[in-house]
């Protein structure tokens, strides 16, 4: 496998200046390479003194060189700020997570959790024909990185999370599943989601959600199988308005709350079971609740939490508190 | 001098120059008083020449590197007229 440092040496002999990695903002690795295992590259990068530990790690669904060529800032004049803000958009959309190199490295070596990275892709006219066989619009979060129906010439898209097992890529999560991941691990800031409308089967209501209390997770091991319980408390504001509904009525709000609770519980459960049964990796760091029960390191290693995670059962409780709707309820 | 040291070996040279200069300074005396007198050596932290000096109206102890005959510049309550009522 060719090493990064040798590649940099070749580049140094080609251009007139010396490559210095101290302003590197993001590291892009393609899916194909990630499937084979990237521990060597990550270790080399972490050992490099010039590289800051807080640059982001992105796994791209296309070739990495295409990803970089397509990064043309449309609304920014300075490309450094473009990268900063593009990668931080997860704070207000919740569709991906801000994963830094230090986080990735420590998760890769940790015994309580596994690593994950940002999923990126190109969303351009040229790639639209690859996804013509997708189902029609489901929800805004059901897409991965280069699937959203946006009309653009060129452009990057960071949506979803790439799930690793040790250092190999094993799966990808869509936008909604990334939002569920953020909700469970207490990294969620705020986002707009859509829930099915209880009064009108064909339409959706959009809610702006954020935490009201920190989420609580507890793990009990009974007979060797883990039982994981998550309690999440959210506050929501209704963003979309319908002329038929009365948003000041207690019953309406209660119904919408119940629908929101069950919708979120279902999404979070399906995300958790997907990581446990299909991908068999624990990216939510549930191992940290289990490690308290062991008194020596050898006991902990023998219990092999990372392998045992696939047998776990989940219970999710979501409590949403809808504050009022917007300013106008009736015109 | 520090420029030359910095040219030779960067931060290391400047640190070395700083160390040597401070060592020479702390060894030298002027008129019998050490050069870095009120700050090093640290003997009495409540005199009126030390790291944190109190405001003017609270300075009562003389600096000890002067080897004065009396350590306090005035009596214990210097502004007697302030606290005594009536005629003295």
């Amino acid at each position, binding site marked *: 496998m060719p090493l990064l440092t040798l590649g940099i040496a070749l580049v140094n002999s080609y251009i007139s200046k010396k490559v210095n990695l101290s302003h590197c903002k993001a590291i892009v690795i393609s899916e194909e390479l990630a499937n084979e295992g990237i521990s060597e590259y990550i270790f080399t990068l972490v050992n490099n003194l010039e590289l800051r530990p807080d640059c982001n790690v992105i796994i791209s669904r296309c070739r990495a060189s295409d990803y970089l060529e397509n990064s043309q800032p449309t609304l920014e004049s300075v490309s450094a700020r473009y990268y900063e803000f593009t990668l931080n958009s997860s704070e207000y959309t919740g569709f991906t997570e801000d994963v830094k190199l230090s986080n990735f490295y420590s998760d890769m070596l940790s015994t309580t959790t596994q690593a994950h990275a940002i999923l990126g892709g190109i969303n351009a006219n040229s790639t639209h024909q690859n996804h013509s066989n997708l189902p029609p619009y489901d929800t805004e979060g059901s897409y991965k990185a280069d699937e959203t129906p946006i009309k653009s010439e060129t452009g990057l898209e960071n949506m979803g999370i790439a799930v690793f097992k040790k250092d190999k890529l094993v799966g990808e999560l869509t936008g909604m599943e990334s939002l569920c991941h953020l909700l469970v691990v207490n990294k969620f800031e705020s986002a707009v989601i859509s829930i099915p409308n209880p009064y009108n089967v064909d339409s959706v209501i959009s809610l702006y959600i954020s935490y009201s209390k920190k989420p609580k997770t507890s793990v009990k091991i009974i007979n060797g199988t883990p039982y994981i319980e998550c309690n999440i408390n959210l506050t929501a504001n209704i963003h979309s308005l319908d002329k038929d509904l009365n948003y000041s009525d207690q019953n309406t709000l209660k119904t919408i709350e119940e629908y929101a609770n069950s919708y979120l519980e279902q999404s979070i459960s399906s995300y958790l079971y997907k990581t446990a049964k299909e991908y068999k990796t624990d990216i939510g760091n549930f191992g940290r609740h289990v490690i308290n029960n062991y008194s020596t*390191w050898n006991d902990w290693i023998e219990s092999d939490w990372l392998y045992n995670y696939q047998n776990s059962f989940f219970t999710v409780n979501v409590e949403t508190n809808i504050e009022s709707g917007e300013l106008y309820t009736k015109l | 001098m520090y420029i030359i040291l910095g040219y030779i070996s960067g931060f290391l040279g400047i640190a070395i120059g*700083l160390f040597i200069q401070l060592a020479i300074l702390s060894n030298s005396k002027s008129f019998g008083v050490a050069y870095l007198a009120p700050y090093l*050596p640290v003997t009495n932290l409540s005199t009126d020449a030390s790291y944190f000096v109190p405001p003017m109206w609270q300075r009562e102890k003389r600096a000890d590197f002067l080897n004065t005959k009396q350590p306090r510049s005035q009596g214990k309550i210097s502004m007697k007229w302030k606290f005594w009522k009536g005629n003295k």
Partner: protein
Amino acid sequence: MNSLQKIGKFEAIALVVIVTINQIIFNLPNTIIINTGSSAWLNVIYISIIAILFCVLICKLFKKFPTQDIVDISEYLGGKVLKLIIGLLYILFFIFISGIFLRYMAISLKLIYFEESPIVFLLLLFLVPVIFAIKLGIKSTSQVNLLFTPIVLFSMLIILFSTAKDFVPERIFPILGFGADKTFLIGLNNIFTFSCFAYLYFLMPVLKNPEDFKKIAISSIIISAIYLFLSVVCLLMMFPFIAFSDEMLSVYLLTRLIEFGKFFQRVDAIFIFVWILSLLSFLSLTAEFTIRIFKKLTKIKNHKEMGYSLCAIIFSVALIFNSISDIKYIQNELLKYIVISLVFVISLIILVLANFKHKKGNVA
């Protein structure tokens, strides 16, 4: 003139504390964590309590011999032969420690900043201020040390508290780490981190007021123990891999993660500057003590000129090691046993026997 130079209370405390701080910078917490796993913090509390008790014992034993250091006591006990042996052992010990730390720092600096310079150059540059300091005597060296020590201590605190937001408290579990026996029984070996006791033994003759010895000893050991504990806890909670891999400067890795918003990033250069200053103080003080022991053993009139040859010896000791793996092996395996046997066992035996002889002498 130099034998009449005395140092005050705060300077003595700073002297002893800077020894432990230097050891923290040069990867000592890493040695503890590798041996005991995630229970390193329990281990540090345990050995700190033992070190404080040991310190109280040493103060009691030294009470009968004011203004005498351990070489004088061994002369009182066993005559010139014992004095020569103990003096030589301590000289070798100090030279050895100086050589190791010097080489370690030079290699680390070479990796970080001076990749193209030959290491001989860096070693020589470090030894130049040491020669100056020896010529100027212990008073000015300890005063410069007193100036730098609070800066070093404050910088350590900044490192520890600005990375606090990224702590992961679950990393201090499992509680007993690699096992209760490794934490408490074999972990007793980790008392080698308090090798500052060797400096306490030689502190008596240079103090202005020998009555302050007890206060100085206890406060310096407490400060060293607090800093050791804080650094071990911080390293343990930040990095999950530190118990299993060998880094060069673990605390440097901590400084790379300090970030105050978008403006203050990568402030590690300031800390390197401060650590260079602390290493210079440490080397000067060690060399000064070595020359004092040498003066007691021989009859040289102008022993300040010995500074040149001493620095040459330290330089050659620093060059003995071929690579970093030699130094790491010595730090992790050999240094433990050397420090424990010399500083704790042999010196304690000498002090106890000398006290017995003193009592017998008084009774008879």
